[in-house]
């Protein structure tokens, strides 16, 4: 097959661009351990509301200042609907749904996951900026989808409420 000289240059350049893309994904994977987010853990959607963990969703602040946030997403709200987490510490979100698929998106951050009945979603992130964030459902879940939201407040650690209690609860 005869390929025109200029088209040959173009082909190599096209392959080069793709290789640059692949190398940048590969380099962040190896160098910074930036992997595709993933978590494999099952839960019976019928038991979510009585589950020891998801039946009592909320925020737990650990000794080292890191936090675990357990969230139940259902038609059409998040529980808890006000989430307080420390700034600059790893925050692990654990979420599930008792009914249909929802999304959990912390607006203007890359905190974003699907919340699927039968499965537990989990991701860990660190907030570098204190303040109030909007959390929205970004997967259509029914006629009230557009009102499904929550508030996430990132505050300095130790937080005013936690300081008096000596952390943990």
């Amino acid at each position: 097959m005869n390929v025109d000289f200029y088209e040959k240059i173009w082909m190599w350049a096209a392959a080069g661009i793709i290789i640059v893309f692949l190398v940048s994904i590969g380099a962040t994977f190896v160098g910074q351990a930036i992997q595709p987010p993933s978590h494999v853990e099952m839960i019976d959607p019928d038991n979510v509301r009585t589950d020891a963990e998801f039946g009592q969703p909320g925020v737990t602040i650990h000794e080292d200042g890191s936090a675990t946030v357990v969230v139940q997403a259902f038609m059409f709200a998040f529980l808890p609907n006000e989430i307080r987490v420390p700034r600059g510490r790893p925050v692990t979100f654990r979420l599930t749904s008792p009914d249909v698929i929802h999304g959990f998106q912390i607006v203007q951050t890359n905190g974003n996951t699907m919340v699927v009945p039968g499965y537990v979603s989990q991701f860990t992130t660190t907030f570098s900026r204190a303040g109030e964030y909007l959390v929205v459902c970004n997967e259509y879940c029914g006629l009230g989808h557009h009102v499904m939201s929550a508030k996430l407040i990132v505050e300095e650690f130790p937080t005013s409420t936690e300081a008096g209690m000596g952390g943990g609860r």
Partner: protein
Amino acid sequence: MIESRKLALANFWVAISAFAIAAGMAVMQALSRANLDLPWRTAKMYYLSVTAHGVLMALIFTTFFIMGFGYVVAERALGRPIAQRKLAWGSFYVALLGTVLVAWAILWNKATVLYTFYPPLKAHPAFYIGAALLVIGSWGWCWVMVRSYILWKQANPEARTPLPVHGYLATIIVWILATVGVAAEVVLLLIPWSLGITERIDPILARILFWWFGHPLVYFWLLPAYVIWYTVTPRVAGGKLFSDPLARLVFVLFIVLSTPVGFHHQFLDPGVRAGWKLFHAFNTQWILFPSLLTAFTVIASFEIAGRLKGARGYLDWLEELPWGDPAFSSVALAMIIFAVGGFGGAINASYGMNAMIHNTAWVQGHFHLTVGTATALTFMGAAYWLMPKLLDRELELSLLARIQPYLWFGGMLLFSVANHLTGLKGMPRRIYQFDYGGSEVADQWMGGTGISALGGVFLFVSALCFVAVMFGTGLAGKRAPQADIEFAEPLEEPGSKARILDRMGLWVVVAVALVAAAYAYPIIQHLATERFGARGVPVF
């Protein structure tokens, strides 16, 4: 006059009617998202219209147009009547019945599950059965096309496969590989569950099967557009195809690369392991390659056209192109838009960046550039070229036809740029309104949704022009003999170069092996894990 004209026209009229209804749904949504208070604006109507717009545009308009155009390609490029004409008509009616069932379920508010229909959102069984019939009808079409090719091949064992047929065979292979996934989802999971035969359904298994289908689906939309870019537009422009073997290479690369990539739609899903997401992420980036080749070959073909008309300088060949002919301008504008959409696709496929934009308005901004323009505007351009020839009538309202592609281009730029930006600011896709209790962050989306609504109005006017020209031509176009349907000649006949690219059986084997590598193990692993299904909620 070609023999399968009635068959082709039947398919085209279904496509154009679906397009017209879907365009009306679209403008309502664009205005609604700008928080304009319109009559009948309710959440129920909004989500119903999102479902109807998605299904009618992405599944009905595209599939029927592709089938109709396929019959024309098969008969004209192979130079013989299509095989199995009865099966062809039967398939058309099966697909039409499926369409009617789906449309009934949606418009009668029994299937507001959006066009991705993720369980456990539960629609009326008619919705799933209709979708299955549409796919079965399309399989009938595939067989008619393949059979026509085989008969031609037996009569012409030494001849090269005509390029438009080569591209269509690639389309068919991609479609069959893709629909295996969705057929499994609909027939094994959704239909029994919606009929109450099974009680629970695994939403992640359904999503894996859906996206097995959902990504190659975009190449099912794109490849017939590429057939038009390679084999129709260079001739319309007055030139020749720059390179025939490279076009064949592009089609073969799509056969191989289209399917083993679906997990890049599921980067943020639980229950799918990170390693498989990474594997699909790497595969996805390579799909840019054949599209980058296409950009060179097709633009070089346009340059040939300009030079044949006397252009001598570096860029003056652009001025010689027939920008006033909607059959040309549609495709040229669609290509410009697709260049932007392609790079957006590379961003979506990179999981680090994907987390910023997943399920935001960015996504609708993206696919309105690709399927909504690269494919849809190309099909409109092809309709301006083909419909007069099939009807033996002159194009009616030709002034509207001339401005229509430019209106679409301008409207789409406004719509899409605005949605990309509001998406980056975090606005979710598919929401009826975004007050969120007076949130200041959500307030920032307001300007963007206004620009998007303005773009939506441009697009609606453009769609009305297209529909008016089509129905006007069909009903009132002046009867006059039209030029024959002929495809672009290559600058140099392929001769016996790169014959291996015509060996579809070989490429099917490679593609199946890749699909197995990408899906067999993760699905088996998933099925072997203890899972709890979800029960299902009719949410409308």
